[in-house]
């Protein structure tokens, strides 16, 4: 990847912050909000809010259904958003399906596979998605529940077996921990761990999966919002990400699937707008992406996500990545100096994005979080929907700080002070 270089020029964070109304509020007893929870959900700039509102006050109608002017305009706006996101992620527009979030996107693939596994009434083209007893679905131990539980359930439904790569002590996927085989049908993994910040060796995993003819599913939730990602170049078969983590609206996510695969895949959610022909006796389905977008979609949200992509593109994803890299450096450097703090995940900047998780000896993450919250610092505490990963490290909960374009170095530096205060408060300092 050429994407991980640090441009020297920094972001004009002060100007960026002016675009985010929520950042000027205070919390608790009048403390400025220090929002270090962008990994859970990011905040939205005015530009995104305005784009949605403009759409709703001017063009709103049901898309792909009506023939009146509003319906035409709404459909155009909706499809223009798809095209923008395609450019942003190096995909073709028809390779992108709008879902409600990344979780639905991953479930879409898992359900399309179990739907394929019931062979009644399907064409031969769906056979490549069928799995059954003896087949293996491979994930990793660091996955977010969204990229784990759907595969567990796929296995339950089909009799396939779930296997996984384990995680090394420094928070990397242990490539030696598992051998794929001809029975491996899917290799699903996170591009960037939402807990550890570590980046997956995508190229190597894709190579291994392709060598055995397995489909690759990339959970790009924590990469697409934070660095340049070209899905076609990565060579994965499917990818999923959410709007709300990339300055866009909630209620919209994206499934990427290579054209050839979406073409062959049976539908997941069925209903209006995804059909070709409906009779009481049976139905046939539209080509992708429509086949996978049943019902009136998240129209204004797609438009908002298009605006978010414009916003991020204007800044430049290289610059976004470089900015977060600097924040990560500051977080690691300052936290490392606090006694009793243990970083969970890579303690370097190598192959790493900006999520910094840690534990504090003698103070539970919830209690650390409470002290930080009292100082206006919003972090996430718990297992961050990666419970097995936490178990792997023998811990119940971590504190996680995560960033976006609006995060300042000063904010990150407050973190270590807050942790020190927590240690004092709980008498372990």
């Amino acid at each position: 990847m050429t994407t991980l270089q640090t441009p020297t020029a920094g972001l004009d964070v002060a100007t960026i912050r002016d675009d985010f109304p929520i950042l000027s509020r205070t919390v608790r007893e009048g403390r400025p909000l220090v929002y270090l929870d962008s990994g859970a959900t990011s905040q939205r700039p005015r530009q995104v809010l305005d784009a949605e509102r403009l759409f709703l006050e001017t063009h709103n109608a049901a898309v792909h259904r009506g023939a009146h002017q509003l319906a035409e305009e709404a459909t155009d706006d909706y499809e223009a958003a798809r095209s923008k996101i395609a450019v942003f992620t190096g995909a073709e527009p028809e390779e992108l399906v709008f879902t409600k979030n990344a979780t639905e996107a991953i479930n879409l693939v898992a359900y399309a596979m179990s739907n394929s596994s019931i062979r009644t009434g399907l064409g031969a083209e769906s056979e490549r998605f069928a799995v059954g007893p003896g087949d293996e679905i491979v994930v990793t131990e660091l996955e977010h529940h969204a990229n784990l539980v759907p595969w567990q359930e796929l296995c339950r439904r089909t009799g396939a077996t779930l296997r996984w790569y384990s995680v090394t002590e420094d928070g990397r996927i242990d490539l030696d921990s598992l051998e794929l085989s001809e029975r491996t049908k899917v290799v699903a993994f996170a591009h960037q761990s939402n807990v550890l910040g570590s980046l997956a060796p995508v190229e190597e995993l894709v190579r291994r999966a392709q060598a055995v003819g397995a489909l690759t599913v990339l959970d790009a939730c924590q990469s697409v919002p934070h660095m340049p990602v070209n899905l076609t170049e990565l060579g994965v078969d499917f990818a999923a990400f959410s709007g709300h983590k990339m300055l866009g609206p909630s209620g919209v996510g994206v499934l990427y699937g290579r054209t050839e695969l979406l073409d062959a895949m049976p539908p997941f959610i069925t209903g209006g707008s995804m059909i070709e022909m409906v009779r009481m006796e049976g139905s046939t389905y539209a080509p992708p992406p429509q086949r996978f977008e049943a019902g009136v979609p998240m129209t204004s949200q797609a438009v908002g996500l298009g605006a978010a992509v414009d916003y991020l593109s204007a800044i430049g994803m290289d610059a976004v990545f470089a900015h977060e890299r600097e924040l990560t450096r500051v977080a690691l450097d300052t936290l490392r100096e606090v006694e009793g703090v243990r970083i969970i995940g890579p303690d370097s900047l190598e192959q790493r994005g900006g999520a910094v998780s840690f534990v504090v000896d003698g103070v539970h993450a919830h209690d650390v979080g409470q002290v930080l919250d009292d100082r206006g610092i919003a972090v996430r505490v718990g297992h961050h929907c990666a419970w097995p990963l936490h178990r792997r490290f023998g811990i119940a909960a971590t504190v996680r700080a995560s960033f976006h374009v609006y995060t300042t170095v000063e904010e990150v530096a407050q973190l270590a002070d807050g942790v020190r205060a927590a240690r004092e408060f709980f008498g372990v300092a």
Partner: protein
Amino acid sequence: MQLEQMYQEIILDHYRQPHGAGLRDPFDAETHHVNPTCGDEVTLRVKLDGDGANRTVQDVSYESLGCSISQASTSVLTDLVVGKSVEEAFRILESFQEMAQSRGKIAGDEEVIGDGIAFAGVSKYPARVKCALLGWMAFKDAVARVKEEA
């Protein structure tokens, strides 16, 4: 009034008196296409003649249920492709399709698409473009099937 731009007299004429309508024998392939948003349907047959580069469209016959645009454009199709070589017919089809999908940007070449240029107004209404292409896509598909079977 923009209506007249869309429904040019030529279109209304073809609509009222469609050319080549009805299903005829003999035929080499038959296709059935629907417009999933409105339920319009066309059943279309082609009869080809000769082979290789000399292959020509001997007949196009059809039965359709649809709006004025889809009916008129299928009528125009038969005028344009019957008697032409398959190669030529596909050139016309491409030209017509290009214009129809151009959002009013391409006027269309009367030399190539004849009465088809009347549909330039339709191309400004994205929801109606599918209507204008319904018969054409059925024709394309039918010819492909003949080729497949050969």
